[in-house]
C-alpha cells in the first residue's frame, strides 16, 4: 500500500504573512484511503496548511499535487473541481438554507445547470433535482442527521452543524476530504460520533486529512500522523511512533520535566 503513488503530494510549501512564516519548506504525502492527521501546538500553521490545500490561501512557493495534477496557483473552485473538499474550523454553514439545501449545494459540481435550464425548469433538470435531493438525504443519514432535513440550519445545534459541514463537503464526492478541527467544541459523546464517522468514511475509501487537537480522536482514528511546529515538520509516523518521539514530547512540554507521561500527546493511548 505504501508503494503506490500518494494521492496528495506536497513539496517545499511555503507561505509567509509579512514577517511571520506560517509554513516553511513543507513536504508531506498522503496515501490514498488513509486517515492522515496533522497536529501541532497552536500557531503551528495547521489552518494555514488547510487553507492552502483548499486553495483559499495562495502559497508563496511549493507544489501541491493531487493525483498527479499540479494545483499551485489555481483558484479555489479549481481545487474543489480537482476533488478536494473541506470543512471549516469556524463554521461556514449556509445559514440562509435548511440542512438539506446545504447538502444539496454541496453537490454543485455534480449538479450544476445552465441558466436557461434553471429558468425554464426543463424535465431534465426536474429529474436531476429529484436525484440530487435523494442523494442529499442519503448523505444526511450517513452523518446521522436524518431528522434535520427541513430544519433551517441557523436553528441547529453546534454539534449537528459540524456534521452538516461534513455532509455538505461529501456532496461533491471528493477524493480528499480536509477536516479542520471537526471535534472542536464537542463533548465526549459527540466527539466519538465524529470518530466513528471518520472511520466509516475511511473504510469506504475517502482519503481524509484531519487537523485536530483532540488527541484521543487523533490517536484512535489515524493511520499516519504529521506533527507541525512553527510552520515546519517536526515528526511523522504511525500514532505509536509519534507518541514516543522525543522531539514531539519536547515540543508539547518543553525539556526535562517529570510529568512527561501524562501530558504527552499519545502517552495515555499508545
Amino acid at each position, binding site marked *: 500500500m505504501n508503494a503506490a503513488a500518494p494521492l496528495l503530494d506536497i513539496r517545499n510549501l511555503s507561505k509567509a504573512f509579512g514577517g511571520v512564516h506560517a509554513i516553511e519548506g513543507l513536504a508531506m504525502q498522503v496515501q490514498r484511503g488513509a486517515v492522515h492527521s496533522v497536529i501541532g501546538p497552536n500557531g503551528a500553521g495547521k489552518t494555514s496548511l488547510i487553507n492552502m490545500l483548499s486553495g483559499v490561501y495562495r502559497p508563496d512557493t511549493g507544489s501541491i499535487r493531487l493525483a498527479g495534477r499540479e494545483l499551485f496557483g489555481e483558484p479555489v473552485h479549481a481545487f474543489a473541481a480537482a476533488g478536494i473538499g473541506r470543512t471549516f474550523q469556524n463554521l461556514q454553514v449556509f445559514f*440562509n*438554507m435548511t440542512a438539506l439545501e446545504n447538502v444539496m449545494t454541496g453537490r454543485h459540481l455534480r449538479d450544476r445547470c445552465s441558466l436557461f435550464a434553471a429558468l425554464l425548469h426543463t424535465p431534465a433538470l426536474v429529474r436531476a433535482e429529484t436525484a440530487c435531493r435523494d442523494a442529499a438525504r442519503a448523505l444526511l443519514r450517513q452523518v446521522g442527521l436524518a431528522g434535520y432535513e427541513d430544519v433551517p440550519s441557523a436553528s441547529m445545534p453546534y454539534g449537528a452543524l459540524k456534521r452538516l459541514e461534513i455532509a455538505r463537503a461529501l456532496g461533491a464526492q471528493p477524493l480528499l476530504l480536509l477536516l479542520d478541527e471537526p471535534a472542536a467544541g464537542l463533548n465526549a459523546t459527540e466527539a466519538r460520533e465524529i470518530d466513528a464517522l471518520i472511520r466509516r468514511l475511511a473504510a469506504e475509501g475517502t482519503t481524509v486529512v484531519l487537523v485536530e487537537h483532540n488527541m484521543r480522536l487523533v490517536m484512535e482514528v489515524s493511520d499516519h500522523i504529521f506533527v507541525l511546529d512553527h510552520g515546519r515538520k517536526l515528526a511523522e509516523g504511525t500514532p505509536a511512533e509519534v507518541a514516543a518521539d522525543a522531539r514531539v514530547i519536547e515540543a508539547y512540554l518543553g525539556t526535562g520535566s517529570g510529568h512527561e507521561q501524562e501530558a504527552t500527546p499519545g502517552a495515555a493511548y499508545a
Partner: protein
Amino acid sequence: MAHATVTVSDSPVAVRHWAARPRVGGTLVLAAVVALAPLLMRNNYAYDVATQVALNAIVCVGLNLLIGYAGQISLGHAGFFALGGYGSAILATRYGVPVWVSLPLACALVGGLAFVIGRPTLRLKGHTLAMATLGLGIIISIVLSTEDRWTGGPDGMAVPPLVLFGWIVKGERIWYWLAGGALLLAVWLALNLIESPTGRALRALHGSEVASETLGIRSARYKLQVFVLSAVFAAVAGALTAHYAGFITPAKASFMHSVELVIMVVFGGMASIFGAVVGAAVLTVLPQLLTVLQDYEMMVFGAVLVGTMVFFPQGIVPTLARWWARRWS
C-alpha cells in the same frame, strides 16, 4: 445533545419555504389575484395604478434575486430600466424597427451592457459595489439627459405604442392584462431559478462566499448571471412602461428611482419573490392613496426604509411568514 444555537446577524434566514413553496401554489394565487383584481377596479385610473404595480413588480422580482438571494446590491438599476425604454423607443422611431422587435432587441442589448459592466463591477463588494452601481446609474441618467439629439434631452421623448400582430395595444385595461401576464411570467422564471442548482449557488454565495467556492461554485460567474438577468428584467419593465405611457424621460434613470426600487425590494422582503411583488404593490399604491401626503412622500419613504431595515431587516413578507409559521408550530 442540544447546545447553544448559532445565530446570524447579517445573512437573512430565507423563510421563503412558506411564501414560495409550493412554487406552483404561490404562482396560482398570484394568477388568481391578477385575474380577479379587476373586479375591484371601477375606472381606468385603477387599471393604470395596477399596471404600474405590475411593471414595478417585474423590476423588483429581478432586483430581489440580486439583492435578497445573491446578497449583492445595486443602486443604479433604474439605469437599466430607462435604457430598456429609451432603447426600444430609439430603435422604433429612428430606425423604424417594429416595436415587437425593438422591445426584445433593446432588452437584449441592455443585457449585453450589463454583462460588460458587470464583470469588473461585481468584483467589488459592500459599499464599493454600491458606489460603483450608483455611479453607473447616474452616468446613464446624465448621458440620457445630455445627448438630446438621440433622446430628446431632459424633457424626454415620445414613444410609439406597442403593435402586436397588427393591432395597436393602447388603453389601461389592455395594458393591465399584458403587464399582469408579464409579471406572472417573470415570477415563474424567478421561482424556477431559486429552486435549481443555480439558485442554490446564489444563495450559497450570500451565505458564505468562501465556503461556496470550496464547493466548486464560481462566484464571479453566478454573480454576473444574476446581475444580467436582473438588468434584463428591469429593461423589459422599462420598455413596457415606455410603450404604455407613450413617453419616457431621463428621470426614469435617476438615483431616486433606483432608490425607490431598492426600497420596494427591501420592504417587501429580501430573498422572497412574492415579497418583491408585495413591496412593489404597497409602495406604488400607497402614494396614490394618500395624495394628502404628496408633500411628505419623500419623508415617508425615507422613514419606511429606515424603519424596515432597523425593525424588520428581512422585510414584510418573510417576517409575516415567520410569525405565521410560529403560530402554527
